[in-house]
């Protein structure tokens, strides 16, 4: 395959940016040739790493040259940095390695965060659809403004839109279904299929590699079963057999004929590798607002725009609203960018997590930029004498500023390269993760794009401007005259208010943002270290789903029959399992014990805002199977399941009792979910309190373990989690037995993620640990930078007063008093910063609804504040003591 012999895309893009145009083709060609040669005898990953290293080395060598050319092309004259300036810059960095390391590291983290966020936001929210004229593909949908979600029950609307909408061509629809693909030895494998109209292939404008795509005739109800497969499946399952067309495969209960193979990389509509026609039963009436979830898409007509299509859609919508049922009247018909409906862009952009992340990243950038600026500034000002000498010798202000800019650019440029490296590694990990999960949409391209590289370059220039030009302008401005006037006297520039403001802001920001970051990190670490809270090696867990083989508009009786058959399937499965030797019991739940849904819950008779609570649906055997003790009241009993869902009682845990009910006796109290709009939610009575389970485990994003358990009856759901407790055999050895039993009970019963419960928990904890590492890295770098910044600021300001200290000593002041006054002044500035930081922290906590700090976090605030105070005072003490050692006569003489 030629694709496999193509070097990494983003490395190539970087290469093209880095190498000057006259050498570009030759260099790129040489590396390509070497890459192809190496691929003959080395694995792909090793060759890609080698390629990346080559590109990075070339980039480093060409970068200064390239940057100079850009700058020269912008303007000519001696104001532009020369090679000498850059070389001097490198030398200056080597002279102060501490500054280079701390500043460079801080900037690299800053660039990594910022460029990483840029790359992710871009590929997530503003992706380029890699299809011909992909930007003209749109989604047509109905937005439920009340619930802030897409309403996807669009079958009725789709049939109308398909007939009437002229501004959008080839209108199509799809839904994702899963089915068992019969493999060898009677074991089924669950696969994901796009049930899609034939027009989907026309919208994508991609032809088949072999055979044909779906045709409109295939959508006819009763036509023979056909399937189109993707390139990856064709390779993996059929060994790339060119005669695969016409072969039959068993999907669910029915044989399907393969009619086409799509080319590599094709995964429209989202991440699909199997396509079957979407069929509508002409015998069943189609009702507005009913039916399965569908996604509707199309291509804007050649002369249409999104606005004109929206106008046309609006006209159709007004008519449908007038004719249709009242409860659907609030839905907004709209045309959006194709990818927007899948990421639920509206809701995501408004979510607090998203806002918090953006806020955190922006804030971190401010901290990083400010600290590096402070470090460089402090050093630049100490060099004011040198600058004054150079000015006296005839250097223009422009020359000196250029020189300082070049110095800063060496630092920021290196930091940008390091930051980009971190981004590349991070994105690669993310990409791998998404590919492993198998559900990455085809348009998500989280690699290092040209835009990201340019963005990082821009940050480097911007960073150089902030840390180079700004202090340089000041150092060569009014202070220069001062420095020239006092040349040789040892006097230094005075800064006063600027420095005080910087110190206060610095301490304030650190105290405000670091504790929540540390808290989040701490939570995840705790979670990763926590034992899982259930017996190891005894539980096997699987997700199951009983697929319904029916057309999209199944009649009510069909649907009821399918639901009945699902219930029979699940109850049969449980009965079969109960008879297996070594099986202690089985339970059906909505999710793994440590996760669950999150919904706001309110208490009857309590006028307080609803609290977000973890919710789980469990059957009557759940608590017994996991040995969870009942602390008050009782467990669920079989006759609770006979009640309707709305009337069923609930069970809660102690943190629910404390945090939601405010303590006291929980039994008999009533709770319900917060309602949206004018609907009413039923009250549920609490019948029991069980111990915290799994003990102490909280999910990384969740502030609390408060949990509410609902009762479900096996067979009520066609998909959920099945957990089996075993005795005398390992979960790993029982897994294939379970798969065989499932396939023999019903070929439509699909199992996925069949693994021991501890293995699943370990994966879960590991992902938390990774997040904690990330948070620790960032918090650590911020703390390091902040400490260095505070140290530089305080020691610099005290240094300014060294002569004053000398004079006061000469005039007879006691050393203790002087030291006391210096430290007091530093402490006042630091305390002001701490105060502002505390207020900001409390404000942020309030804004986040108390979930940012969650009580414990507030303890971290004074700890951080104390640390910053300590760093500041230590920084002040050093120069103050040195000032005390200045001989009084010397101090007076220099005055």
């Amino acid at each position, binding site marked *: 395959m030629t694709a496999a012999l193509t070097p990494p895309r983003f490395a190539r893009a970087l290469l093209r940016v880095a190498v000057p145009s006259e050498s570009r083709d*030759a260099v*790129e060609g040489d590396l390509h040739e070497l890459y192809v040669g190496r691929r003959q005898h080395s694995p792909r990953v090793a060759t890609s790493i080698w390629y990346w290293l080559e590109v990075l080395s070339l980039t480093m060598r060409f970068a200064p040259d390239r940057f100079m050319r850009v700058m020269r092309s912008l303007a000519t004259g001696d104001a532009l940095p020369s090679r000498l300036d850059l070389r001097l810059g490198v030398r200056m960095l080597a002279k102060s390695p501490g500054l280079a390391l701390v500043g460079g590291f801080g900037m690299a983290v800053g660039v990594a965060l910022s460029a990483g966020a840029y790359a992710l936001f871009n590929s997530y929210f503003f992706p380029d659809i890699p299809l011909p004229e992909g930007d003209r593909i749109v989604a047509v949908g109905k937005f439920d403004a009340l619930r802030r979600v897409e309403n996807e029950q669009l079958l009725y609307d789709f049939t109308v839109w398909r007939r009437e909408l002229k501004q959008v061509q080839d209108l199509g629809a799809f839904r994702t279904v899963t089915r068992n693909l019969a493999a060898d030895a009677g074991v089924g494998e669950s696969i994901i299929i796009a049930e899609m109209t034939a027009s989907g292939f026309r919208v994508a404008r991609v032809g088949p590699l072999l055979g044909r795509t779906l045709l409109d005739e295939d959508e006819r109800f009763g036509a023979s079963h056909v399937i189109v497969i993707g390139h990856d499946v064709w390779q993996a399952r059929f060994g790339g057999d060119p005669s695969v067309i016409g072969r039959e495969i068993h999907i669910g209960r029915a044989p399907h004929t393969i009619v086409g193979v799509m080319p590599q990389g094709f995964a429209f509509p989202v991440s699909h590798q199997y396509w079957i026609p979407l069929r509508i039963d002409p015998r069943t009436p189609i009702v507005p607002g009913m039916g399965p979830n569908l996604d509707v898409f199309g291509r804007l007509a050649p002369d249409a725009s999104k606005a004109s299509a929206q106008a046309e859609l609006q006209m159709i919508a007004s008519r449908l609203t007038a004719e249709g049922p009242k409860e659907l009247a609030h839905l907004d018909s709209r045309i959006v960018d194709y990818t927007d409906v899948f990421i639920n862009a509206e809701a995501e952009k408004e979510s607090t997590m998203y806002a918090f992340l953006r806020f955190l990243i922006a804030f971190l950038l401010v901290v990083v930029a400010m600290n590096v600026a402070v470090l460089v500034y402090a050093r630049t000002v100490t060099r004011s004498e040198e600058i004054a000498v150079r000015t006296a010798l005839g250097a223009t202000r422009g020359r000196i500023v250029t020189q300082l800019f070049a110095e800063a650019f060496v630092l920021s440029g290196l930091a940008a390269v390091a930051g980009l490296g971190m981004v590349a590694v991070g994105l690669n990990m993310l990409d791998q993760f998404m590919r492993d999960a198998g559900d990455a949409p085809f348009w998500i391209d989280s690699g290092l794009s040209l835009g990201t590289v340019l963005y990082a370059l821009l940050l480097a220039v911007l960073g150089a401007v902030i840390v180079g030009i700004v202090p340089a302008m000041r150092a060569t401005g009014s202070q220069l005259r001062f420095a020239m006037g006092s040349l040789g006297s040892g006097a230094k520039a005075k800064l006063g208010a600027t420095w005080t403001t910087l110190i206060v802001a610095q301490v304030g920001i650190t105290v405000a943002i670091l504790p929540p970051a540390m808290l989040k990190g701490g939570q995840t670490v705790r979670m990763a270290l926590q034992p899982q809270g259930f017996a190891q090696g005894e539980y096997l867990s699987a997700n199951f789903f009983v697929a319904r083989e029916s057309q999209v508009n199944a009649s009510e009786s069909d649907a009821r029959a399918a639901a009945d058959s699902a219930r029979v399937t699940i109850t049969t499965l449980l009965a079969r399992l109960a008879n297996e030797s070594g099986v202690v019991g089985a339970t059906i739940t909505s999710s793994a014990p440590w996760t669950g849904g999150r919904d706001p819950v309110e208490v009857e008779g309590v006028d307080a805002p609803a609290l977000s609570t973890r919710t789980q649906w469990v059957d009557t055997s759940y608590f017994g199977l996991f040995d969870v003790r009942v602390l008050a009241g009782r467990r669920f009993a079989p006759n609770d399941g006979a009640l309707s869902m709305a009337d069923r009682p609930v069970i809660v845990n102690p943190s629910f009792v404390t945090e939601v009910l405010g303590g006291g006796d929980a039994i008999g109290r009533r709770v319900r979910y917060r309602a949206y709009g004018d609907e009413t939610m039923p009250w549920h009575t609490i019948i029991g309190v069980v111990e915290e389970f799994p003990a102490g485990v909280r999910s990384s994003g969740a502030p609390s373990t408060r949990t509410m358990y609902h009762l479900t009856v096996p067979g009520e759901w066609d998909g959920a989690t099945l957990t089996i407790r075993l005795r005398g055999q390992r979960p790993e050895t029982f897994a294939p037995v379970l798969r065989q039993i499932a396939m023999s009970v019903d070929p439509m019963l699909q199992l996925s993620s069949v693994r021991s419960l501890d293995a699943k928990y370990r994966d879960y904890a590991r992902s938390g640990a990774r997040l904690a590492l990330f948070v620790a890295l960032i918090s650590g770098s911020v703390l390091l930078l902040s400490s260095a910044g505070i140290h530089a600021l305080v020691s610099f300001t005290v240094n300014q007063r060294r002569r004053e200290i000398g004079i006061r000593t000469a005039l007879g002041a006691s050393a203790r008093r002087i030291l006391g006054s210096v430290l007091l002044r530093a402490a006042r500035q630091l305390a002001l910063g701490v105060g502002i930081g505390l207020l900001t922290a409390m404000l942020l906590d309030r804004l986040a609804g108390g979930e940012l700090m969650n009580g414990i976090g507030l303890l971290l605030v004074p700890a951080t504040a104390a640390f910053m105070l300590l760093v500041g005072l230590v920084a002040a003490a050093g120069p103050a003591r040195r000032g005390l050692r200045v001989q009084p006569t010397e101090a007076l003489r220099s005055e």
Partner: protein
Amino acid sequence: MTARGLGEFEQLVLLAIAHLQKDAYGIPIVEEIERRTGRSVARAAVYITLRRLEEKGFVSSWMSEPIAERGGKGRRYAKLEAEGVKALRDARRAAERMWRGLDPASLRVK
């Protein structure tokens, strides 16, 4: 090194081109220097040096037809020019003159 003179690495690149004759482009030049000197060479240094040598008029270069195995890119072949040959000879003569009267085996650090 004067404006007309040659740096040590420039000499190595020019000599590699001389050895390779018609096959002198980036990859073999790097390999030739590494093979003959036994030291590893930064690829970027070779490209930058080639450009500088061309600016000085010591070598000329041209692009070949696009080649599929190179992702559709051509090769930039380099050829020694008369100025380059002269510069190499001058460098050699200068070195020989400097060595005259010295025995490499008897060189000692005092």
